């Protein structure tokens, strides 16, 4: 039962954008929406297993969030999948450039997906870009 479809495209590696994308994806997913997330460009390296590079912040909010107990964006994306059945697709082009395979990515990510399939899946949903 889905009241609507929300597609979240994340290409930024900045803390503020990753955080906002994770908030939209997780809250939508637990509120009855079908949620599809697409990670590409600078967003994807954050989801390589074992990489613990902190997302850089763009401004005041990011710096403040780093010092407070704001839920981590990775936790929120994982909860979007586990609690709300969101699907998170890593961009196959970004994976090729980074030379990573599905097994190298966080386990809550789905299989590598290209734009052709994602655009087709997203055509009847709202698209949010971060």
């Amino acid at each position, binding site marked *: 039962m889905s009241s609507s479809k929300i597609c979240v495209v994340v290409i930024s590696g900045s803390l503020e954008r990753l955080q906002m994308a994770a908030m939209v994806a*997780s*809250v939508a997913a637990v*509120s*009855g929406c079908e949620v599809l997330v697409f990670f590409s460009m600078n967003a994807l390296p954050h989801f390589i297993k074992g990489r613990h590079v902190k997302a850089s912040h763009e401004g005041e909010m990011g710096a403040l969030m780093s010092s407070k*107990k*704001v839920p981590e964006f990775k936790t929120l994306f994982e909860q979007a999948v586990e*609690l709300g059945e969101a699907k998170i697709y890593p961009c196959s082009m970004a994976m090729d450039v980074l030379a990573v395979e599905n097994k190298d990515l966080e386990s809550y990510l789905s299989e590598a997906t290209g734009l052709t399939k994602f655009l087709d899946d997203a055509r009847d949903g709202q698209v949010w870009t971060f």
Partner: protein
Amino acid sequence: MANRKIVDGRGSFCPGPLMELIVVLKTCKVGDEIEVLSTDKGSANEIPEWCQKIGHAHIGTTEEGGVWHIIVRKSK
């Protein structure tokens, strides 16, 4: 008799307390009550909104010394 569980979301920020509530709701039976403690005013607004949308009962909210107590009953 219905149980009441406490979800301590103090110190966290939106949507942390909501997510913690949902994790616990999944382990509860219909009729059980959950009291969410939150120091985040956004969550005090967000959790009742979510309950209304999803169909769980928001029993009430009180605020004491900067801590919101948001009581929810699992309804389905």
